[in-house]
């Protein structure tokens, strides 16, 4: 069942087109992550769902009805902002109760108390209910923000980089918690981020946005393995996908029209060209190159290799013996190369 959708929605701000004909359908209980750099139109897309912006063209539906012309209050959605969404003059309890106290919602005081306590329990902020929100840590504040969204059981949750202002450890904790809560509640979430790790781990489907257009929307695995174009390929994967000329790496048969070849670092096979005793071995397959740097991260090692003046990242095993300055031969795992035409689209 489709819970929310945009149909060729366009939004302009003066001369700039923030969202350009985006069509997007979100299934019930689905976690959709919109990924893209600053200015790609992620936040505007989210605000179109919320009704904080009205599209210049196109339609918005939520729970089966057309809400294009309705205000935010009539859409029954919840929005988690990057920051500033907690009211500094209220306590944690009052902040969590705020959406339920909206006139017209008519929730009894006893019910409000019960619901707020449930949510506080779920998000592990129950001991802080009486505190002022200004006395909370960053992680607690963001939990309360998410709690304010959860307290109401809306049709659709909209989250605008809710974790981006937190430090790495907290971000990881909250990310896991958010996924757990989403599964438990079966919530439908549209989530905006520029963090590929968040996108990969949270999303049922990732929507890649570029300059207001939806480039590709699919499961994280499909976007990673079969990106629609170079742009989408570059959004996922760290280090980024290697882009080389079709002839630069020995990649076997190159289809006609291919202007660039993309190879993920884990698909670059690197072997030393010389034996350890200085005597040449049987020459390994692949093009010759030299290792520029080796970065050891524990679970993985990433080498930067110079191949004919071009720098290529390669993922090595944790126990590699390759070191800086070593001459190597690089090849591509068979069938792993991605071919892009001159416009950047994948062949």
């Amino acid at each position, binding site marked *: 069942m489709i819970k929310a959708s945009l149909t060729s929605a366009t939004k302009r701000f003066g001369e700039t087109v923030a969202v350009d004909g985006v069509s997007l359908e979100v299934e019930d209980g689905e976690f959709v992550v919109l990924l893209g750099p600053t200015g790609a139109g992620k936040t505007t897309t989210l605000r179109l769902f*919320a*009704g*904080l912006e009205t599209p210049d063209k196109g339609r918005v539906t939520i729970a089966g009805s057309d809400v294009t012309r309705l*205000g*935010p*209050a009539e*859409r029954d*959605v*919840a*929005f988690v*902002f990057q*920051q*500033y*969404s907690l*009211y*500094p*003059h209220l306590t944690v309890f009052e902040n969590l109760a*705020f*959406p339920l106290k*909206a*006139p*017209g*919602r008519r929730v009894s005081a006893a019910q409000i108390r019960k619901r707020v306590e449930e949510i506080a329990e779920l998000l592990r902020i129950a001991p802080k209910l009486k505190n002022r929100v200004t006395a909370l840590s960053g992680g607690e504040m963001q939990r309360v923000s998410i709690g*304010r969204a959860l307290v*109401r059981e809306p049709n659709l949750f909209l989250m605008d980089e809710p974790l981006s202002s937190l430090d790495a450890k907290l971000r990881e904790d909250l990310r896991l918690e958010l996924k757990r809560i989403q599964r438990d509640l079966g919530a439908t979430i549209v989530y905006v981020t520029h963090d590929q790790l968040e996108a990969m781990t949270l999303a049922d489907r990732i929507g890649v946005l570029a300059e207001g257009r939806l480039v590709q929307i699919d499961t994280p695995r499909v976007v990673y393995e079969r990106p629609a174009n170079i742009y989408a390929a570059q959004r996922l994967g760290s280090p980024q996908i290697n882009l080389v000329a079709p002839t630069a790496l020995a990649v076997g048969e190159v289809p006609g029209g291919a202007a660039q070849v993309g190879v993920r670092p884990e698909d670059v096979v690197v072997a030393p060209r010389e034996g350890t005793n200085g005597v040449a071995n049987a020459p390994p397959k692949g093009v010759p190159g030299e290792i520029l740097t080796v970065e050891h991260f524990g679970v993985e090692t990433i080498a930067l290799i110079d191949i004919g003046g071009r720098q290529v990242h390669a993922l090595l095993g944790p126990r590699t013996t390759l070191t800086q300055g070593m001459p190597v031969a690089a090849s591509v795992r068979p069938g792993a190369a991605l071919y892009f035409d001159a416009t950047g689209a994948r062949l």
Partner: protein
Amino acid sequence: MSVAAYSVGEASPRQKLLAGVLVVAYALVTMIPLVWIVLTGFKSPPASISYPPQVLFEPTLEGYVNLFTTRSRQTPEYIESLGPAETWYDALVRERNMVITGKSRFAGRYMNSVIIGFGSTFLAVFLGTLAAYAFSRFKVPLKDDLMFFILSTRMMPPVAVAIPIYLMYRELGLSDTHLGMILLYTAVNLSLSVWLLKGFVDEIPREYEEAAVVDGYTRFQAFVKVVLPQMRAGIAATAIFCLIFAWNEYAFALLLTSGTAQTAPPFIPIIIGEGGLDWPAVAAGTTLFLVPVVVFTVLLRKQLLRGITFGAVRR
């Protein structure tokens, strides 16, 4: 280490001493006239004009009694015939061969000041808050020009337009009315109030209102529940500035009011006693006149301290 000597937080004992001396010196310069006024209020008329000035004197409430009463001189025989004085202030007056003949107009003038000062402050802040919110949040055509126009009303001394306003008020029947003075002070204060408050609204992120609107509140409810509470400091600071202006305003009060709506500032300096100005009564009136502003400022001083930085300190 020499680095410590230049650190921001710590002042050396000598620096602290110097700072202390400067603060005390400044306080003395500003406080002495005030202290003199308060003391003069408790002097007798001869003591108040004696030369050299008396620093130590026998305090009396004569100034305050004179401030609130009108009196007439009588012969000692007549006063004798009245029998013993019924109240302490009767007794005080009779020592100078006078009897109290009625209440002075001071209380009425004081009430006028309260009505006009607080009334215009309320109006200026109320209208200013709404205008500031609109200027900050809505697409107002010619917004910048309008803001400049509002500010331009303060680019000359208000008294420069005294004559046109005087003529206008006479035509409209607003001369010497409470309404007229409230409107005038509101108009003068409004530009200050709109500009100050707009700064405070600009400081409040829109996300707060957007969050409230998504949560099911109307725009107005979001304004009342979310924006107003966060504007408290700004509103308090603005209110104090407006009140101080309206409370102390002298020129227009002198020009436009004479009777029913006369405020205290033009009245206090012309309190006449025997043989000229009654200095203790003038000083007593001034002292009482200071009280509301001092109380108002002390009550709001916490907000004022936060507000007076005008958003210089981000959250």
